[in-house]
């Protein structure tokens, strides 16, 4: 909790809290029992449905799918950070012929659904002669341009949130524009924006799951394949649960890194960093 909206409870509030606690717990319990009972009733806990995960080949293919997901994520993340940085610098350029195209690119790709981007790349371009597009390239390119555009805005917001005294001081000691940006503004902006940037990386990881629609064989594709194996009683729910746990685990590790970074930054003396983070962390999804 960052702020407390309520006083330390008095005796009456304490009693009410206990009562509410009991009610909430009871409701959760009822919901949980209902779901588990429904799972049990429809045979979701049958050993036949879960036994599929005991086969080495299935485990290997799950592992391979996880690696495929991570590959798309890693390449997509690195490339979109680079692209985001370039676009952000372009958008802050003094020359309109650099600034305007960068702005259009950012606005265009931010407004296009990621899935449509992937489809354009994988289904739209090959008939026009772009035959080198594999599912992996389609997924990574779409992730890169979309998240690059989003990250460009994050970097820009970070720079713009800095007090104007920073750049003025830079110019005063004789730095050139590019030096002010690369030596003074960007380092501070990136530091201020780290939590938002990492949150966006989590988005990249999750969005890689869209790859199954362009036949990229990642985790969700694997879940679908395993889930429709009839000789194991179509274990769709077990497969969704297993893959869900993997995704949540991977995302939590990433979020954990973000929390750790945030805490490290908070230790730094600059109160500025803290404030801008709070302000801007809302803007992006």
């Amino acid at each position, binding site marked *: 909790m960052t702020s407390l909206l309520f006083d330390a409870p008095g005796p009456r509030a304490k009693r009410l809290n206990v009562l509410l606690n009991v009610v909430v717990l009871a409701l959760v319990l009822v919901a949980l029992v209902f779901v588990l009972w429904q799972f049990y009733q429809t045979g979701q806990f049958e050993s036949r449905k879960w*036994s*599929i*995960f*005991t*086969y*080495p*080949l*299935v*485990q*290997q*293919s*799950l*592992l391979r799918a996880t690696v495929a997901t991570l590959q798309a994520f890693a390449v997509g993340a690195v490339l979109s950070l680079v692209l985001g940085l370039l676009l952000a610098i372009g958008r802050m350029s003094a020359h309109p012929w650099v600034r305007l195209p960068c702005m259009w690119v950012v606005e265009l790709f931010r407004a296009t659904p990621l899935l449509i981007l992937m489809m354009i790349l*994988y*289904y739209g371009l*090959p*008939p026009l002669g772009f*035959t*080198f*597009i*594999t*599912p992996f390239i389609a997924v990574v390119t779409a992730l890169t341009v979309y998240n690059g555009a989003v990250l460009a805005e994050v970097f820009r917001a970070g720079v713009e949130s800095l007090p104007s005294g920073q750049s003025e001081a830079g110019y005063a000691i004789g730095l050139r524009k590019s030096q002010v940006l690369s030596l003074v503004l960007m380092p501070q902006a990136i530091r201020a924006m780290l939590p938002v940037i990492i949150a966006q990386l989590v988005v990249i990881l999750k969005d890689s799951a869209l790859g199954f*629609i*362009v*036949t990229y064989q990642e985790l969700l594709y694997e879940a*679908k*394949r*395993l*889930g*429709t*194996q*009839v*000789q*194991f009683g*179509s274990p*769709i729910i077990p497969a969704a649960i297993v893959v869900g*746990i*993997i995704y*949540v*685990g*991977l*995302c*939590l*590790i990433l*979020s*954990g890194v973000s*929390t750790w970074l945030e805490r490290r930054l908070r230790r730094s003396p600059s109160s500025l960093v803290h404030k801008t983070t709070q302000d801007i962390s809302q803007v992006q999804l």
Partner: protein
Amino acid sequence: MRKKALLLGVSLVAALTLSACGGGPANDGDNTAGDSNSRFEVAKDVSLSGSPTFDAMVKRDKVIIGVKEDQPNLGYRDAATGERTGFDVEIATWIAASLGFGADQIEFKAIPSVSRESAIVNGDIDYYVGTYSITDARKEQVDFAGPYFITGQGLLVAADNDTIKSEKDLKGMRVCSATGSTPIQNIKDNFPDTKTVEFDTYSQCVEALTDGQVDAVTTDAAILIGYAAQDPDNLTVVGEPFTVEKYGVGLAKGDAVLRAHINDLFTNGNDTWTQIYDDTLGQSGTKVQQPEVDAS
């Protein structure tokens, strides 16, 4: 709170990785078709001058074949053993052998119906053998060798369904098929009163049928028979096929040399064809003749 969640995540991943190394009841299956391939004699010193697809195969010393992996008796892959079985898989292996590639030089790639053209056009695969109907619209993007099999559109319904007896009873029903497939187009064009549901694989449609989300699954009878055979208590095929579908081998457009090679193989290989059929689809008891190759 966060820390605990993080630890949980780490331990889950660790547990998964560990279990991935642990043993299971099954043997380590081979990824390829295995022994079933030995019956095809692998040709030696094949040369197809003027076929870019073949040149690419030779260069990488491997042939990449697009197949289905969720169609029992046609193109199926057992998730537990990794073994690929079925009529289409055998045909694909036969073609590979005729081009000089043994089972260990084949990489199968599962491609759903909707992305078949792009997979061929992109060169992701060398050729595609997977219940691929020859149609004029598709011929604009890809070439076909064959046909190597003829079937027609049928209906799969729940075993306890008394209302749907044939395609005439489809009015107002929810019918499922694969996105981008010929049967779903036929339903939309000729049975306008039905509601269509589309997924990218037929097995998802079959799941929807067993769960009662749709009333019937429609596609080629050969595919449906395979599913019904897998779950005879719950599923049954009704009516007579009401269209004619010719399965061909999907090839990159313009590769006439490879196309002619495969057509010759089919024309001269009736014995092999019959043997493949008897071992796979023929086990359901139906007898059919190999169709004549359409070389035009």
